[in-house]
């Protein structure tokens, strides 16, 4: 499904209204993991792309259960969204033709495989930014559902 222009503006790399998010994944037995993700971008209006900088349990979960849920953590004013859908990590080493819901490894790695070219890590405050970065790939979330996170109407479908 297509994201709204407001959502795209919030999630786009280097956008004016840059948000910090959490990516929730789960093991097949249902144990959840939340992964802090300050870097995001949007592709074809329906994919949320983020770098695999330190994913550990996230990757283990995705390796056995390819579903992800991204929630906006900050700033939340007007952005209380949760994006859910199929999720995978495209890694350096995948053949260029490897595809996940139509996104090929070739295009994903060329565009987002070195995130620092897209969005310098120093956009994050010095005491918060990673001291050293080793990007192994990109996380691709195909948005199939967006729901509301606000306490009063949590879970209500937005689109």
């Amino acid at each position, binding site marked *: 499904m297509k994201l709204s222009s407001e959502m795209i503006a919030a999630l786009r790399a280097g956008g004016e209204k840059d948000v910090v998010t959490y990516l929730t994944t789960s093991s097949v037995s249902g144990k959840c993991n939340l992964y802090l993700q300050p870097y995001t971008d949007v592709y074809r209006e329906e994919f949320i792309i983020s770098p695999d900088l330190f994913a550990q349990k996230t*990757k283990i979960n995705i*390796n056995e259960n390819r579903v992800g849920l991204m929630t906006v953590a900050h700033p939340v004013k007007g952005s209380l969204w949760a994006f859910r859908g199929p999720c995978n990590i495209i*890694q350096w080493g995948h053949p260029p033709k490897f595809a996940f819901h139509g996104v090929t490894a070739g295009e994903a790695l060329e565009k987002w495989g070195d995130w620092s070219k897209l969005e310098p890590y120093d956009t994050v405050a010095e005491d918060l930014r990673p001291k050293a970065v080793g990007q192994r790939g990109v996380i691709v979330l195909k948005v199939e559902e967006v729901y509301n996170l606000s306490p009063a109407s949590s879970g209500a479908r937005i689109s």
Partner: protein
Amino acid sequence: MATMTPRMKAWLEKFGAHIGTATKQGYPTTIVVEQASITGDGVVAFNLTPAQANQIKDNIAQNPYVALAPHAIASIRAAYQFKGPAALSGNTLQVTVKEIYCTKPGPEAALRLDVLPLEHIVKFEESRWRDSGPPK
């Protein structure tokens, strides 16, 4: 129980495995058994020496979940890891495989295979390795 492919079975039977065990508190002890036999789709039996059985019997009694990684040249050619509960009866260690992972270095490292349909796992193997088992 997970379903092992013919390739997995062939490499594991011929070369055996490093068997990771641990206390309930997480203190590891690994033994190496140089061949295995596989019954059905996913039950692996190892014939231990008395020294090996004695070395891990307390771990198995308190924490039967073990990990298996193929030994010798299979550690390179057959990059899998198998996990599941084990039972020690005399000198026979029988492991019921519940989880199967690809451990091939690269983007597939840690990919869980047992959650996929068997035909997908076989296709995955065919696309990743040139052999279908150890040389005869």
